[in-house]
């Protein structure tokens, strides 16, 4: 297992998270209808795709410009080839300032690198300040959705946690009291923290501006109260200019929640200048860790992702197994694509593309038109090349040999002597209505949860021939 893959993926539904996810994804589906009424959705998607495609095509040039602009503004830019390098660099910046407390605003990239554990090992306490992340961290849990980290938990779970932390009783129905408690607990940390750590939604190359989108205000506080701001960003998040940013900061909330604006959007252009409030020190840590290797290859479009979380809510498999079911930092269809893509093929991450019925709901939901279902198929083929499954490969080889010839195909279905008839044996005639409770190899798993229709005693080919000869 690597930092990105935490545990094996589930192979069964998780009934505990299903009710929450069904509500959340149902709400999302309604907001999506609303989003379609606000704008010309297909035109907006195409523009968003073009902005991201430009960024990835011209990535080295844009990163260079971003760095030059940020340095000219007095910021620091760090390059991390791996997660370990990024974590070590961030820990070193904290250590140089003698910092022991950092406030963190939600960052999936830091989940990907396992930053919190690395900081803890270096003697630095990192406190999550997004409400959902705060809850998840206090429970020793991990986020289960890119944007809604605690979507698998209920208000009752949160009330129980806060009662335990505070020693006073909370009513799950009184969400105001729950929020107030978290706000009070976090306020002291914002005041005391020596460092604020955030992710980055977009970085605008032309002016060196970091764009951060949020709904709670904790990013504003994390980037304005502590004297040092460290932003961790995957290199693919850069875009060319403000025109592109103006589109994407609307497209992101539109895709995730059906509105044209997030609660707050921060545009941070360099550290605080004389007379300004805010951090005097701004660090941008640029993480590669497998990203540049995807450029120019069949999975390049996965780098277009803006982490809106729409494909998770759209996915019928995500609804059944939840974000933790993927066993990786990134979940849902995009997680099933970028995890094995960035890992470059490990047995654990190669299992993720199987978690899809290829229904295409992810691709339909994606605001930047990533062909997620096609990429899942591409990744399955890559996985087979890396780690052949002998029995399955042999079955498909036999299948291809037989079914690439009409004689071989017709022999499969022929009554009595055909391959299917031999496999199914008496089952073909074992029921009056053509349905049986048990299927033979290689279809046996079908009937673990379902009955199955047996092959027809007389296939269409034979019926057609009989009709023609009649």
């Amino acid at each position, binding site marked *: 297992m690597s930092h990105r893959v935490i545990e094996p993926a589930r*192979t069964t539904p998780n009934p505990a998270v299903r009710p929450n996810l069904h509500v959340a994804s149902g709400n999302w589906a309604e907001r999506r209808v609303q989003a379609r009424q606000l704008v010309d959705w297909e035109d907006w998607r195409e523009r968003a795709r073009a902005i991201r495609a430009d960024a990835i095509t011209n990535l080295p040039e844009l990163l260079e410009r971003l760095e030059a602009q940020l340095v000219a503004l007095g910021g620091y830019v760090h390059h991390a080839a791996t997660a370990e390098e990024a974590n070590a660099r961030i820990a070193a910046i904290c250590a140089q300032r003698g910092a022991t407390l950092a406030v963190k605003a939600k960052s999936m990239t830091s989940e990907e690198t396992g930053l919190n554990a690395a900081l803890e090992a270096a003697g630095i306490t990192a406190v999550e300040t997004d409400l959902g992340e705060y809850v998840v961290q206090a429970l020793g849990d991990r986020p289960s959705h890119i944007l809604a980290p605690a979507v698998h938990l209920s208000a009752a779970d949160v009330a129980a946690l806060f009662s335990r932390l505070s020693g006073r009783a909370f009513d799950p129905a009184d969400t105001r009291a729950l929020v107030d408690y978290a706000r009070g607990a976090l306020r002291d940390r914002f005041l005391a923290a020596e460092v604020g750590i955030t992710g980055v939604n977009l970085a605008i190359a032309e002016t060196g501006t970091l764009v951060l989108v949020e709904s709670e205000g904790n990013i504003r506080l994390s980037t304005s109260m502590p004297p040092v701001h460290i932003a961790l960003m995957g290199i693919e998040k850069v875009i060319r200019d403000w025109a592109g940013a103006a589109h994407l900061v609307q497209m992101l909330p539109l895709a995730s929640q059906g509105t044209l604006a997030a609660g707050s959007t921060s545009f941070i252009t360099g550290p605080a200048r004389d007379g300004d409030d805010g951090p005097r020190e701004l660090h941008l840590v640029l993480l590669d860790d497998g990203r540049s290797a995807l450029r120019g290859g069949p999975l390049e479009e996965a780098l277009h992702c803006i982490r809106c979380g729409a494909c998770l809510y759209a996915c019928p498999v995500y609804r059944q197994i939840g974000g933790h079911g993927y066993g990786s930092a990134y979940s849902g269809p995009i997680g099933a694509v970028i995890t094995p893509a960035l890992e470059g093929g490990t047995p654990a991450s190669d299992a993720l593309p199987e978690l899809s019925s290829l229904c295409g709901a992810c691709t339909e939901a994606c605001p930047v038109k990533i062909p997620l279902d096609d990429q899942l198929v591409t990744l399955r083929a890559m996985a087979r090349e890396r780690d052949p499954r002998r029995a399955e490969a042999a079955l498909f080889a036999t299948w*291809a040999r037989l079914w690439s010839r009409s004689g071989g195909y017709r022999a499969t279905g022929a009554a009595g002597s055909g391959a299917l008839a031999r496999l199914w044996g008496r089952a073909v005639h074992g029921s009056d209505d053509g349905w049986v409770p048990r299927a033979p190899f290689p*279809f046996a*798993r079908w009937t673990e949860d379902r009955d199955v229709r047996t092959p027809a005693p007389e296939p269409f*080919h034979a019926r057609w021939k009989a009709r023609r000869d009649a």
Partner: protein
Amino acid sequence: MPVQLFVTCLVDLVYPEVGERTVALLERLGCEVAFPAGQTCCGQPAWNTGYPQEARRVATRFLDVFAATEGPIVAPFGSCLHMVRHHYPALFAEDPARLEQARAIADRAFDLPSFIVDQLGREQVGGTYPGPGDTAVAYHHECHLVRGLGVREQPLALLRGVAGCTVVEPERGELCCGFGGTFSLKLPAIAAAMADEKLDRALAAGAGAIVSTDVGCLMHMEGRARRRGLDLRVHHLVDLLEPDGRL
């Protein structure tokens, strides 16, 4: 109009009566149906499971068989059409001659509902529900037809012309049922849970039957409904387009 029937492997081997009803329907609509007997499968099972070379062998057979024919190619199974129209260009990307052939065939290939509605210009073709009168019917949107090929209204239009049933629309009607080809053999418990959601939403909408155009979805949903002992009938759309309501 001459029409080439692409019956598809699952219809041929497991649901041959769907093929026969498709022929009967097309003939009733004035088509002259031919059945190229050398046809096998589109190759999708291997492609979706990660075996593009094996898929290409079988898909090459498909191209050879249908390149030798003329006129529209019609299939009662949207997913196979999606394979031909959407995935063949990727499958044959490195073979310019085959790619050209695949594109030409894709342009001739139609799923049954959009062929009837868009090509024959028939929004309704009649039909009688083959069961208890006044059954509420939920249409299941086959993923590869609705999202893959953008065919949403055509099957519903045909369904609305059927006597003896009313069309109900369950919530989230475009959610996948969980069939997904080999997905439902590899992760059967997740696939069954997805079917349950679909079946429960149909029942909640008052449906007595589910209708679709993908016999994979049909076998999956009916197999699950039977295992659970649900009072829910499952039909291919062509079952309802028979004029006399007999099955």
